[in-house]
C-alpha cells in the first residue's frame, strides 16, 4: 500500500518537474528557440485543460449514474471545434488584433471599452468559476482520502485535508501564474507545463482503461458483455438534458476564462486552430474511450456504495496495482492543477486589470507612475486575487456540503459562464449589438442563473419550503419552476430561462439603444475583422511589403540610414538585393529601430498597417496620440531652447552694436579732442608767426595778437583740465572728499566764484530759508557743478535782463536744486545732447570746450545723484538731485544774505 508520505513526496516531485518544464520553456521562448513550443501540438494539448478533474474522475461517475449522458460534455467542444471552427478563428483573430488579455477584456473592448461591462463579466466569471474550483478541491480531496483511508497511521484527517489542498493549490497557482508579468499576457512556460499535464492525464486514463479492459475484464468482448449487462446500456436518452448539456459544454468551451486564455490569448498562430480542429476532438475521444468500460467494470467489481467518481483510482487500488493507482492519481492531480492554474491566472488577470488597477490608479489621482511601481501592484493584486478565488472555492465547498456529485457542480459553473455567450457571439457577428444590450442581457441571465441554479444548489441557502412554494408564497417565482412551468429538469429549466431571457433582453435592448462612436468603431472592427487584417501570423509579408517598409523607413530614419539598415538586414538573410525578406525577426528589429524615432506605439502601428498582421486598434491610436503629445512637448522645449538661443544671439548682436557704437564714439571723441586742441593751437601758431615775421606792426596790433595768443593758451589749459577731470571721473578712480556742510554755504561759494570778474553778472535769485539744509557730500565737487551751471546761465542766457532762479526743495529722500534762467532755453531736440562731450549746442561764444555738463553729470553720478535738463520751464533749466543725507545735528546757520 502506498503511504501518504510517499504520495505527498510524489506530488511535490511532480510539481517540481512542472516548474522545471515551465522554466526551461520560458528560457527557450526568451531566446527565440521555441519553434516546437509554438507548435500546433502544444496548442492542442493546452486546450485539454477543458478536461479537469471533473472529466478525469467525474466522467466515470457520470456514466455509472446516468449512462451515456457524459458524452455530451465531450460532444459540445467537439461540435464547436469541428462545426464552428470559423467562429473560433474570428475570435482568435480579434483577440490578437485587439491584443485582448481576457474574455472580460474582449467583451469590454467590443462594447466601447466599457469598464463597467468588464467588471460585470469579471464578477460573473469569478462567481461561476467558484463552484468549479470547489469541484477541483473536492476531487483532489476525495482522491487523497482514498489513500488516507488506506494508511490510517498518517495522522491526516479527512476534514482538514481540503483546506490544505486549497492552500497548496493557491500557492501552486500563485507560483506558476504570477512568476513574471508579460505584456501580452502570454505564458509559454505555463502552457508547456499544461501540455505535459495533458499528456500525463491522457496516459493515466488510457493506462487504467487498458488495465480494466485487458487486465480485469479479460478482453474487449468480455468487457462489452459486462457493459451490456450493466445498467449503463439500458438508461434511456433524455433529449432535453442531452441538448441542454451539449449546448452548455459548447458554450463553456468558448466562454470559460481559462479556455479563452489558452485558445485566444496564448495562441501564437491562428493556423494552429486548423490542427486543433481535428486533434482536440481526437484527444477528447481518447479521454472518453474507456469511461464506459471503467464504469461498468467498477459497478460490477467494487463493493456496493463505493463512490463511482473514484473508480479510476479505486479499481487499480482494489487490485493491488499501486503503481497504476499512483499514475491515476497523478492524472487526476494534473487535471485539477492545470485547470486551477490557468483559471486562477485568467481570473486574476481579469480582476487585477478591470477592478483592482482602475481603483488603484484612480485612488492615486490617475497620475502616471513608475512602471516598477505598477508592476509590483499588479503582481500583488494578482496574487491576492488567486488567494481570494481559492478561498471562495473552499467556502463554496463547505457551503455545498461537499457531497454533491462532481458532474452536478460542473454543470452549475457551465451554466453560469454560458451567460456571456449572447454578448460574445452577438458582438462578433452583429454590428447592432450595443453596450446597453450586452449589459442588460448579461445581468438578466446572471440573476436568473443565480436564482434558479446556483443558490438552490447550495443547500443551506434556500429552504425546502422556499423551493417548493416560491418567495412569499408566490408560486410562479419558484426558483425551479418559473412562470408556472413545472415538470422540467431543474438544470434544463434554469438554462432555458436564463439563456432565452438573456438573449432576448440582449437583442431588444441592443435594438432600442444607440451605440457610442467608440462602440460603433469597435463593433465594425470586430464584425469585419477579416476585412482589414490579412496575414494569419504576427509579422509576415511579402517582398512587396518590404518596399513599402523601405519607403516608410526612409521617411522616418532618413534615406541613407534606412538604406544602410535594410542592406545590413538583407546581407544577414543572405539576400542579393537591398530588400530583406520581411521575416518576423527583421520586422521586430525594424520596429525597434523606428521606435527610437517615433515611439514604440507609433512604430508598432505603422508596421502593423503595412504588414497587416494586426489592425490598428483604438488603443494603438491613443498610444500614438500620447506619443505625439510627448513629441509636441519635446518640440516645444526645443522651441524654447531655440528662442533662448536667438535671444542670446540678439543680445550678442546688441552688445556688438554697442561696441561698434562705442568705438565710433571713441573715434568721434578723438576727432573732437583733436579739433578742440588744434583750433587754439592754430591761432596761437598763426599769430605768433605774424608777431615774429611781420615788420612794422602797430603797437595796438601787437597787443591784440598777444592777447589772442594768451586767451587761446588759457582755452587750451581749461580744455586739458576738463579732459583730465572727465577721464578721472569716468574711470572711477576719483576719491571723494565727503564732508558735512550746509547747502547755502556751498551755493554762496559757487555763485561768487562763477560770477567773479564778469562785467555784467546775471542776477541770481535764491530763497535762503529753503537752503538751510545739512549735507554730507564732496562739497568742492558739488560746488564745481553749481559753478558750471551758473556759468552756463551767465554765458548762454539770452534775455535782456538775465535772471537765474535757484529753487531748493526735498522730495522722496532727495534734495532737489533747480537752476532756472529766463532765457529762451534749449530746443527740445537738443536737450538730450547737452550732456554729451563736446556737445555745444549753439555757436560757442564763451570758448568752453563743451565738456562742462558732461563733467557735471559724472560728478553727480559719483555723488549718488543726477543732473538733467528740466523740461517745461520758460527758460533754460537744470535740475540737480542729491540724496539727502541729513547730518545728525540740525543745521546751525541762521539766516544769510543772498550775496
Amino acid at each position, binding site marked *: 500500500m502506498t503511504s501518504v508520505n510517499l504520495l505527498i513526496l510524489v506530488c511535490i516531485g511532480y510539481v517540481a518537474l512542472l516548474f522545471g518544464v515551465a522554466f526551461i520553456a520560458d528560457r527557450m521562448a526568451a531566446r527565440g528557440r521555441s519553434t516546437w513550443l509554438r507548435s500546433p501540438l502544444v496548442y492542442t494539448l493546452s486546450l485539454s485543460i477543458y478536461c479537469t478533474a471533473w472529466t478525469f474522475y467525474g466522467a466515470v461517475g457520470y456514466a455509472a449514474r446516468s449512462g451515456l449522458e457524459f458524452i455530451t460534455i465531450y460532444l459540445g467542444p467537439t461540435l464547436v471545434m469541428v462545426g464552428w471552427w470559423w467562429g473560433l478563428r474570428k475570435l482568435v483573430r480579434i483577440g490578437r488584433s485587439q491584443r485582448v488579455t481576457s474574455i472580460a477584456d474582449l467583451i469590454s473592448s467590443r462594447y466601447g471599452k466599457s469598464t463597467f461591462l468588464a467588471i460585470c463579466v469579471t464578477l460573473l466569471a469569478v462567481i461561476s468559476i467558484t463552484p468549479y474550483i470547489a469541484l477541483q478541491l473536492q476531487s483532489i480531496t476525495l482522491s487523497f482520502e482514498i489513500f488516507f483511508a488506506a494508511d490510517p497511521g498518517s495522522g491526516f484527517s479527512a476534514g482538514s485535508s481540503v483546506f490544505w489542498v486549497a492552500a497548496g493549490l493557491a500557492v501552486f497557482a500563485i507560483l506558476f501564474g504570477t512568476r513574471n508579468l508579460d505584456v501580452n499576457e502570454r505564458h509559454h512556460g505555463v502552457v508547456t507545463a499544461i501540455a505535459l499535464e495533458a499528456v500525463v492525464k491522457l496516459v493515466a486514463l488510457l493506462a487504467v482503461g487498458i488495465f480494466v479492459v485487458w487486465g480485469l475484464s479479460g478482453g474487449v468482448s468480455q468487457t462489452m458483455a459486462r457493459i451490456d449487462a450493466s445498467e449503463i446500456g439500458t438508461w434511456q436518452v433524455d433529449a432535453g438534458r442531452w441538448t441542454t448539456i451539449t449546448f452548455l459544454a459548447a458554450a463553456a468551451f468558448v466562454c470559460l476564462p481559462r479556455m479563452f486564455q489558452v485558445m485566444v490569448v496564448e495562441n501564437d498562430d491562428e493556423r494552429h486552430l486548423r490542427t486543433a480542429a481535428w486533434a482536440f476532438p481526437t484527444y477528447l475521444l481518447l479521454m472518453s474511450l474507456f469511461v464506459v468500460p471503467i464504469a461498468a467494470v467498477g459497478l460490477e467489481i467494487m463493493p456496493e456504495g463505493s463512490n463511482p467518481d473514484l473508480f479510476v483510482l479505486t479499481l487499480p487500488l482494489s487490485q493491488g496495482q499501486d503503481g497504476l493507482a499512483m499514475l491515476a492519481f497523478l492524472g487526476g492531480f494534473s487535471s485539477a492543477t492545470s485547470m486551477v492554474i490557468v483559471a486562477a491566472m485568467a481570473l486574476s488577470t481579469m480582476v487585477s486589470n478591470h477592478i483592482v488597477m482602475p481603483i488603484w490608479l484612480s485612488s492615486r489621482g490617475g497620475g502616471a507612475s513608475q512602471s516598477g511601481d505598477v508592476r509590483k501592484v499588479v503582481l500583488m493584486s494578482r496574487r491576492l486575487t488567486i488567494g481570494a478565488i481559492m478561498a471562495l472555492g473552499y467556502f463554496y465547498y463547505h457551503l455545498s456540503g461537499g457531497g454533491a456529485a462532481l458532474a452536478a457542480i460542473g454543470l452549475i459553473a457551465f451554466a453560469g459562464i454560458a451567460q456571456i455567450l449572447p454578448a460574445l457571439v452577438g458582438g462578433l457577428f452583429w454590428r447592432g449589438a450595443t453596450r446597453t444590450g450586452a449589459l442588460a442581457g448579461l445581468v438578466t441571465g446572471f440573476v436568473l442563473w443565480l436564482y434558479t441554479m446556483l443558490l438552490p444548489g447550495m443547500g443551506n441557502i434556500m429552504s425546502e419550503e422556499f423551493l417548493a412554494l416560491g418567495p412569499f408564497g408566490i408560486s410562479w417565482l419558484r426558483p425551479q419552476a418559473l412562470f408556472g412551468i413545472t415538470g422540467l429538469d431543474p438544470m434544463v429549466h434554469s438554462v432555458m430561462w436564463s439563456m432565452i431571457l438573456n438573449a432576448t433582453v440582449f437583442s431588444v435592448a441592443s435594438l432600442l439603444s444607440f451605440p457610442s462612436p467608440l462602440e460603433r468603431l469597435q463593433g465594425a472592427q470586430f464584425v469585419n475583422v477579416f476585412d482589414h487584417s490579412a496575414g494569419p501570423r504576427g509579422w509576415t509579408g511579402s517582398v512587396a511589403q518590404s518596399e513599402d517598409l523601405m519607403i516608410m523607413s526612409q521617411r522616418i530614419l532618413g534615406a541613407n540610414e534606412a538604406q544602410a539598415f535594410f542592406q545590413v538586414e538583407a546581407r544577414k538573410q543572405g539576400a542579393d538585393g537591398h530588400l530583406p525578406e520581411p521575416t518576423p525577426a527583421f520586422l521586430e528589429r525594424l520596429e525597434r529601430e523606428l521606435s527610437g524615432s517615433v515611439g514604440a506605439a507609433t512604430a508598432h502601428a505603422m508596421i502593423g498597417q503595412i504588414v497587416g498582421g494586426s489592425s490598428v486598434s483604438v488603443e494603438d491610436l491613443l498610444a500614438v496620440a500620447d506619443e505625439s503629445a510627448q513629441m509636441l512637448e519635446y518640440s516645444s522645449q526645443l522651441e524654447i531652447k531655440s528662442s533662448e538661443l536667438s535671444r542670446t544671439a540678439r543680445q550678442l548682436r546688441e552688445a556688438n552694436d554697442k561696441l561698434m557704437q562705442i568705438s565710433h564714439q571713441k573715434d568721434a571723441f578723438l*576727432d573732437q579732442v*583733436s*579739433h578742440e*586742441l*588744434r*583750433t587754439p*593751437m*592754430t*591761432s*596761437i*601758431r*598763426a*599769430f605768433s*608767426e*605774424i608777431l615774429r*615775421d*611781420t615788420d612794422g606792426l602797430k603797437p595796438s596790433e601787437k597787443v591784440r595778437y598777444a592777447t*589772442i595768443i594768451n586767451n*587761446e593758451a588759457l582755452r587750451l589749459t581749461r580744455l586739458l583740465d576738463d579732459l583730465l577731470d572727465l577721464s578721472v571721473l569716468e574711470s572711477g578712480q576719483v576719491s571723494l572728499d565727503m564732508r558735512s556742510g550746509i547747502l547755502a554755504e556751498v551755493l554762496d561759494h559757487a555763485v561768487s566764484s562763477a560770477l567773479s570778474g564778469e562785467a555784467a553778472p546775471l542776477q541770481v535769485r535764491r530763497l535762503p530759508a529753503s537752503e538751510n539744509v545739512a549735507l554730507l557730500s564732496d562739497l568742492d565737487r558739488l560746488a564745481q557743478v553749481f559753478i558750471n551751471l551758473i556759468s552756463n546761465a551767465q554765458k548762454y542766457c539770452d534775455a535782456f535782463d538775465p535772471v537765474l532762479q535757484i529753487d531748493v526743495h526735498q522730495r522722496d529722500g532727495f534734495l532737489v536744486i533747480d537752476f532756472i534762467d529766463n532765457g529762451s532755453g534749449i530746443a527740445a531736440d537738443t536737450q538730450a545732447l547737452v550732456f554729451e562731450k563736446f556737445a555745444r549746442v549753439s*555757436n560757442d561764444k564763451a570758448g568752453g570746450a563743451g565738456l562742462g555738463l558732461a563733467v557735471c553729470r559724472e560728478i553727480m553720478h559719483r555723488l549718488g545723484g543726477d543732473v538733467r535738463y528740466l523740461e517745461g520751464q520758460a527758460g533754460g533749466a537744470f535740475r540737480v538731485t542729491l540724496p539727502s543725507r541729513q547730518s545728525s545735528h540740525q543745521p546751525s546757520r541762521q539766516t544769510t544774505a543772498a550775496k
Partner: protein
Amino acid sequence: MGRKVLLIEDEPNIIEAIRFLLTREAWEVETHSDGTDAVEVIRAGKPDLVILDVMLPGKSGMDVLRDLREVPELAKLPVLMLTARGQVRDREEAEKAGVSRFMTKPFSNQEVLMAVRDLHAQATQS
C-alpha cells in the same frame, strides 16, 4: 589785380590770422562761417580761390566740397581745405571729393601762403 579768396571758417581768431596774411599778399578776403549755404555763397561771390574748413556748423566742409564739384562752373575752382581733425582717412576722403590742396591745422603761415600762390598760379596757367 582783383584776386579774391573766400574763406569759409567758423573760428574768429583763425579768420583774423588768415585775413591778415592774405591781405598783405593783395588778396581781397571775403569770409563766411556756415556750411549750410556755403555753395550758394561761393557761386554768388565768384572767388578765385576758396579756403574751406572741414568742421563747420550746419554742413561739413566735405559735403560742401562734394556739392561744389557737382556745379559745372565750380568744378575746377581751386579749393584749399583745412582740418583740425587730421586723420589719414580725412585726407583720402577729401582727395576723392576733388580737393585741390589739403592742410592740417596748425599750419605755418608760410605754408598757407605758398599753397595759395601755387593754386592761383595753376589756375591762371590753365
